[in-house]
């Protein structure tokens, strides 16, 4: 969901930026290490316990064999990314190492599942880096005009660019529905392609922001398009979080 954080976690270990990582949303798992390994963390800050003892939130942690790392609740943002040296060795399906409902056997990780890594190449421990606990995530979401932007009235454009919007309880990796609505409309479009970041405007006025697991086609007007930075930033928000759209030029 947050590519910036994913790339950051991988960069800390010198991994190719798209090496498979763990995405931990809202809270994280308890991991038992079967070999010594260095892990990197980026994105939201989560409470961490090493062998049951609370430790300072760190960006790089060296873990020994048989030690446990437990991730609690997020302290800021919503999603934390955990990278390992060389990336996780998850199965590649249709060219991706990600999990996806209906495509991979499971959509999420399960209890007692074993995760494979490339193994540690360095013997010496790197200095443990402290994470910025005070990190806050921006409230301005950059957007471009969507292909159907012309359907909007002056009044609606003003609303979209000056008011605060709130993420509703209906949100997932596929889409975020907003609480606020625009005026209902009757525009009926032939189904066309959409992409992550596309903002749809439904006939009853709802605004739906498509996220990373979105479908590839849709029939609702596409009024705005989030930039990559916009999607990464929005990914760190969830139910009841407010934000503002910032219209920018490509």
């Amino acid at each position: 969901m947050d590519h910036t954080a994913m790339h950051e976690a991988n960069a800390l270990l010198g991994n190719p930026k798209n090496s498979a990582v763990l995405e931990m949303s809202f809270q994280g798992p308890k991991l038992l290490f079967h070999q010594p390994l260095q892990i990197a963390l980026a994105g939201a800050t989560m409470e961490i316990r090493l062998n049951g003892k609370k430790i300072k939130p760190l960006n790089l942690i060296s873990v020994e064999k048989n030690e446990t790392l437990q991730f609690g609740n997020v302290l800021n943002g919503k999603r934390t990314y955990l990278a390992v040296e060389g990336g996780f060795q998850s199965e590649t399906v249709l060219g991706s190492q990600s999990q996806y409902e209906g495509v991979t056997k499971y959509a999420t990780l399960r209890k007692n599942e074993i995760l494979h890594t490339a193994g540690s190449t360095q013997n010496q421990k790197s200095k443990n880096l402290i994470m910025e606990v005070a990190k806050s995530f921006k409230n301005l979401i950059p957007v471009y005009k969507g292909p159907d932007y012309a359907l909007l009235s002056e009044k609606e454009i003003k609303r979209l660019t000056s008011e605060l919007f709130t993420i509703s309880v209906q949100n997932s990796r596929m889409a975020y529905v907003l609480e606020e609505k625009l005026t209902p409309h009757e525009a009926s479009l032939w189904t066309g392609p959409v992409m992550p970041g596309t903002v749809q405007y439904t006939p009853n006025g709802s605004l739906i922001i498509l996220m990373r697991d979105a479908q590839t086609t849709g029939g609702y007007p596409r009024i705005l398009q989030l930039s990559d930075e916009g999607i990464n930033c929005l990914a760190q928000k969830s139910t009841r979080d407010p934000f503002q759209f910032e219209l920018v030029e490509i």
Partner: protein
Amino acid sequence: MDKKTSFQFFLIHPNVVLLEWNETPSDSLLLELVTFRKLLLNKFETLIQVTQGYQSLMLYHSHPIKKRDVYHAELLSLFNSMSVDLSSKGKKWQIPVCYDPSLAPDLTSLAELLKLDKSEVIDVHANATYTVYFIGFLPGFLYLNGLPSALECPRKKQPSPRVEAGSIAIGGKQTGIYPRASPGGWHIIGKTPYPLFRPEQKKPCFAQAGDRIVFKSISLEEYKEMTYQRANGNLIIQPQ
């Protein structure tokens, strides 16, 4: 062949361009879209994906598009000089469908809405030939064109929270098959035992844009038998 209609060019993201044809969807436009898509994927190295709609193509590049005017002009030139093989028709597939009420929760209500007998709805649906316009919405969901006008109907006012995998449904001017369970607002009139999306296969979806589909009515017994074959991995569909 008539002169091709030109497209509109929208840059919607630094790496992504939407091309839209201001023309009512038709089999000839479909052929142009399918042909152009293949041409573009062969031509541009940084083009990683092209998604198709009824009258549009979305081009995803791996890098930001530089010199947009030059790129736009190049696309126009490629499209205008492109030759379309009018005889190309894609493959024809026959999909077994069981229209038994136990598998068709909306058949009765839809027949009432259309003021037809249930058997008439089935006959009209099964006697038409449909064209796969594109794949979208869900992996393996085929957008089928060619629904006889007698079967056109508005979407359900209240979408069903769960439509079973394999369900054949009608909504608006379209008919389609749900490749997996999902919420849905179309009227469910039957079910196919055939698996529509198999990620483990080299070609996970058996059909592609431009192919044609016909539905073959099967009995409940045949449906059950085919479901059994499918569980054993013995259900394979071949083009006609």
